[in-house]
Structure formats: structure tokens, C-alpha cells
């Protein structure tokens, strides 16, 4: 069965600087992805269209691009529903990277940042007891399960707000990759890595907009990785950055009074001089009723709750990234229309219209 698919593609030529929105109407098989559609366009309609592709199965990371302004992997994007709805999506190159031609961006800045986090296991770990194999439990690898799934497609970088403001920001992909090594029990350079990540253009530049997490086609969740890096840095006593101080003050504030004392936030994180500069802003906020007056500090009724939480985290040794890791099953959580559900196998096979339960060799016949 075929379907009609409409596409509007932003064409661009970096040599001439020409730019044009070109519309295509093609016939494609119903199961076609965006990449299949672009292949049809290139083969049968306009051979000059440029885009990257290789594996066609969401593993090489070549085909990142934007559809209606949001980064997608072209080979993962099924077009049926879109075509059926009569929508004609706009396809353009990824953001935050220079365009070479049409949908192809220059990935050099991406790879530079990738390399800047030293994405290789650094020796320094203990030698294996038998001198041969270094066995690491699944549990310890679960910590970096999501981060290890990254396919370097750049979709997160394309959408990153902090990078738009500071093109030198290390960025979600490289930071997720950094976490992949910081959390790896075999890596011997954790502290040096964290030191560097706390420097200029490092983890604290992230605005926490969550666009990277939203857009990552592999469930890597870079924002989560950045949070883990922050928590681990503070656990290791690396807290000179304003961002770290800010986070620490949240904790102190919640522990002592059970709520956030905005009036003290600025002096605690930016220092007193900066705080004075911000006074005018604070007064404005106070006038508009946004901030309660500073004195006397008000203690929340349930402050004990918040203190207990604090103690619990400390007692369990779950400060640092361990407090954030939740036995990650990134791909398992990606939505595909079906929930995972908590049905038993029996319930699954009993669904109306379900296939028969397969025969399992070592199972009792009547089981």
C-alpha cells in the first residue's frame, strides 16, 4: 500500500548562500519513515537534495534533522500518521551547528566537544584479582546504562538553549558522555574529570530547560546526566561554582526552615557584593508581593519531614549520583504507544486477539 506524503524542505547551499523552502509531494510505502521519504525525493524527484544517512535503523546517528522545528532521527520517524492527517511538515537542518548543505550540518564543533571530555576509559582502576578479567556487576553498570546508549546524533545539541547563548558550552551530548565515564567503576580519572567539568562552559551553564532530554531519540536523558555530574561534584567537595553554591543553599535552606528563602539565595550563591547589586531587583519583587520580607525567617510547619529526608539520604550514602540513579532502563521507558504495564504473562496471553502462548521446551506441559 502506498500513501501520499508532502514535505517542505529548507534547501541551503553554504557556497552560494542561497536558501529556499521547496515543497515535494511523493508516493511512499505506508511503512515509510522520514528517511525513506527523503530517499524517494532524492532518487526520483531531485538528486541535488543533501542529507546524511547510513544504518537506517537508529544506531549510527547520521540522520539527525529537524521536523517542524524539533530535532528527530529521520530513520525513526514513521510518516503514516502525519501523512494521514494531511499535514505537510517542514524539514530543516539541525540547530546550533553550521549548515553545510540542505540538511547536512558541519559536525566538527560537535566532535570537538565530544573529544574535550576525553571519551575513553582512563586506566587507574584496580587490577583484576585473577589478573585476567575485570568483572563488573550489572548493578554498577546500570548507573551509566542510559548514557552508554548515546549514538552521537546531535539531536540534543541541536535543541540546547544554553548552547544557543554560549556556543562554547560543552553541551548535552558531551556531558552525557562525560557521565558515562565518571560513573564507570573502571575509570581512574573521575576527580580530574569532575574538576574540568566544573570549569568554564561546564555543567553549571546548563539552563535545565530539558529540551535535550525531550528530544533525545535514544532515551539518553542528558539533563539527568548533568544533574548526576553536579551531585557527584558536590559530594567530592567541588562546589566553587555559583551553580553548586546555589544548589547547596537549596539544601541548607530546606533543612533549616523547610522552605526556600529566596532573600538569602543571592548572597549565598553570588556573594555579598553581587547581592547588593541585585537589591533593587529584590525590592521590586518584594513590592509586587513575590518575595516575603526577609525577617524573621519563617519555619515551615513540617520542617521535620524535610530534615528527615536529608538525614535519610546522608545515612544511606545516597548523596552524589547514586541518589539520582534509579536502575535506569532508558529504552524500556521510551514511549512507543504501548505502556510496559504490570500485566503478568498469563494476562498478556489472555488478551482478546492475542497469539497463543508459545511452547517452551523445558516447561511442564500443563503449566
Amino acid at each position, binding site marked *: 500500500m502506498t500513501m501520499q506524503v508532502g514535505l517542505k524542505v529548507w534547501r541551503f547551499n553554504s557556497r552560494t548562500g542561497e536558501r529556499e523552502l521547496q515543497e515535494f509531494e511523493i508516493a511512499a510505502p505506508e511503512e515509510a519513515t522520514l528517511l525513506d521519504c527523503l530517499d524517494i525525493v532524492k532518487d526520483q524527484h531531485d538528486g541535488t537534495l*543533501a542529507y546524511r544517512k547510513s544504518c537506517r535503523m537508529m544506531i549510527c546517528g547520521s540522520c539527525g534533522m529537524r521536523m517542524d522545528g524539533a530535532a528527530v532521527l529521520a530513520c525513526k520517524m514513521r510518516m503514516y500518521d502525519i501523512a494521514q492527517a494531511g499535514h505537510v511538515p517542514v524539514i530543516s537542518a539541525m540547530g546550533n551547528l553550521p549548515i553545510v548543505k540542505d540538511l547536512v550540518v558541519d559536525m566538527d564543533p560537535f566532535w570537538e566537544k565530544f573529544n574535550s571530555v576525553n571519551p575513553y576509559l582512563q586506566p587507574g582502576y584496580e587490577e583484576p584479582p585473577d589478573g585476567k578479567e575485570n568483572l563488573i556487576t550489572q548493578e554498577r553498570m546500570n548507573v551509566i546504562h542510559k548514557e552508554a546508549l548515546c549514538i552521537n546524533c546531535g539531536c540534543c545539541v541541536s535543541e540546547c538553549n544554553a548552547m544557543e547563548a554560549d556556543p562554547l558550552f560543552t553541551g548535552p551530548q558531551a556531558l552525557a558522555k562525560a557521565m558515562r565515564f565518571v560513573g564507570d567503576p573502571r575509570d581512574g580519572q573521575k576527580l580530574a574529570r569532575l574538576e574540568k567539568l566544573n570549569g568554564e562552559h561546564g555543567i553549571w551553564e546548563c539552563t535545565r530547560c530539558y529540551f535535550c532530554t525531550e528530544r533525545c531519540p535514544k532515551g539518553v536523558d542528558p539533563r539527568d546526566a548533568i544533574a548526576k555530574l553536579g551531585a557527584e561534584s558536590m559530594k567530592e567537595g567541588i562546589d566553587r561554582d555559583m551553580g553548586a553554591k546555589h544548589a547547596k543553599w537549596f539544601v541548607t535552606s530546606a533543612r533549616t526552615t523547610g522552605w526556600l528563602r529566596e532573600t538569602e539565595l543571592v548572597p549565598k550563591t553570588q556573594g555579598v557584593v553581587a547581592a547588593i547589586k541585585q537589591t533593587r531587583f529584590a525590592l521590586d519583587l518584594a513590592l509586587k508581593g513575590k518575595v516575603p520580607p526577609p525577617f524573621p525567617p519563617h519555619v515551615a510547619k513540617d520542617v521535620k519531614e524535610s530534615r528527615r529526608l536529608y538525614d535519610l539520604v546522608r545515612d544511606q550514602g545516597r548523596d552524589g549520583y547514586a541518589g539520582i540513579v534509579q536502575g535506569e532502563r532508558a529504552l524500556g521507558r521510551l514511549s512507543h504507544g504501548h505502556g510496559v504495564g504490570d500485566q503478568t504473562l498469563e494476562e498478556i496471553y489472555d488478551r482478546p486477539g492475542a497469539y497463543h502462548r508459545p511452547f517452551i521446551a523445558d516447561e511442564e506441559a500443563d503449566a
Partner: protein
Amino acid sequence: MLDMRHLGAERIIDRLPGSRELSMTFAGVDPIYDPVPVRPGAHYHMGGVETGNDGETELTGLYAAGEVACVSVHGANRLGGNSLMETITFGRRAGRAAAEWALANTTVDLPESAKADAERELKALLDVSSGERPWQIRNDLGTSMLENFGVFRREEQMTRQVEIIAEVRERYERGVVVEDKGDVFNSDLTQAIELGNMIDLAACMLQAGVARKESRGAHARPYDYPDRDDENFMKHSISRWAGDGPELSWKEVRYTKFDPMERKY
């Protein structure tokens, strides 16, 4: 249909998240609940440019690594993870050796005529203004190779495919139209060049396939030679391009720690 339901939701999510993602995205089927439709497909190219342990090839200064290369560690079987050996172990070795070679040999004497030849060929390809677009030929090549040189191979199908390749080559050599004449990321041009290479490669594979009268690894001839024949074919097939067609020769298998044995599962 591939039925994985007996594994249960937890194990599927834990151990097969990638396969589940693929099934759901491309077939719209969640393997936790339903069997997944499957079919044969080309997954990995096991042969390749013959290299030594450092990625070096017959041509001085040319190094190959990854799926394009063949260090011949795993023989004719596609074992889970053998591409990792090609990329991680031999990729590293090849990269290092190639860099060392490049640092030690800063100039390569390239005859002017070779450069002129290459330029002429490119220009000829770009100058074609009427004829077939490469994709039609590429599709015919792919479909016929899957049909006649796919999972189970028959002598007569392979010989027929040799003829089909000759026709495909004729169509290609008549000239294909490259629409992109530009010099920025011109994948229309590179795809047209690759098509020519694919036709050559298909010819090499067919010649070696017909000559290998046994079944070994991914080369399965259940109808005429269902068994492995170590006496005659415990050797590598080596193809070299000789003017207008491939030339087949054989090379001894080097084994050190492990003796080759039949895969029984």
C-alpha cells in the same frame, strides 16, 4: 514471526531493549505482547579488503579498518560482536599504523597522469545528461542479488545472476545521470560512484561463491553441497580486479590458538 513472549516483560526490557525498540518503531509490534515479523536482510559484510594485523593492505600506504576490512579473525561466520573486534581492536591498530606511516612518509609521488585520469572520469560522469538515474540500477542490483545470492544458494541461480550482473553493468556503463553537479556534499555523485563499485563487488562475490563448492558459515548451498569440505576449501577466497573482471585465487588459513571446528548450533 519471531516469538519472544516467553521471555516475559522484564527480561525483554532488561536484556533486549534495542530489539524491542526496533520492533516497535519499524513493525509497530511490542515483542512483550506479540510475535515480531522478521525476514532476512544484509546485516554485516563479513569479507572485505584483506589486511594484516595492523590494517595494512597490499597497496603501500593504504590501510583499511572496520566493516570494509577483513582481518579474517572469525572466518565465514557472523558471530555476535565480531564487528567490535574489527572496529575497536583492529580499528585502533590500523589507525595507529596509518598515522605512523603518514608521519614517516610525508610525500607520495602521484603521477600527473593518475590525477588527470581521475578528473576525466569524474567529468565524464557529471557530463552525462540523459539516461537512467542510478537508483533504478541500484534497486535492480539489490533485488536480484537477494533473490539469487541470498541465504540459500543454488548453482543455477548464481550463474544466472552472473549474467544479470553483466546486464546491470552494461546499463551502468551506458552512463547514468547525476543531477547534482555541485561540489558541496554531493552525495548524488558519491552514490553513483558507489554503484559502480557495488557492481564490481557483486561480480567478485558471485565468482567466489560459485567456486566454493561447499557450505561454510554464511555461504550455504543446501541443495548441492550441504557439508563443509575442509580438505578442498579450508582457505580464503581472494579476488583481485583484472582489467574487466574479477580474478579468483586462494590463500591458506592461518590459525594459532584455536583449531577451526564446525559450528554445531
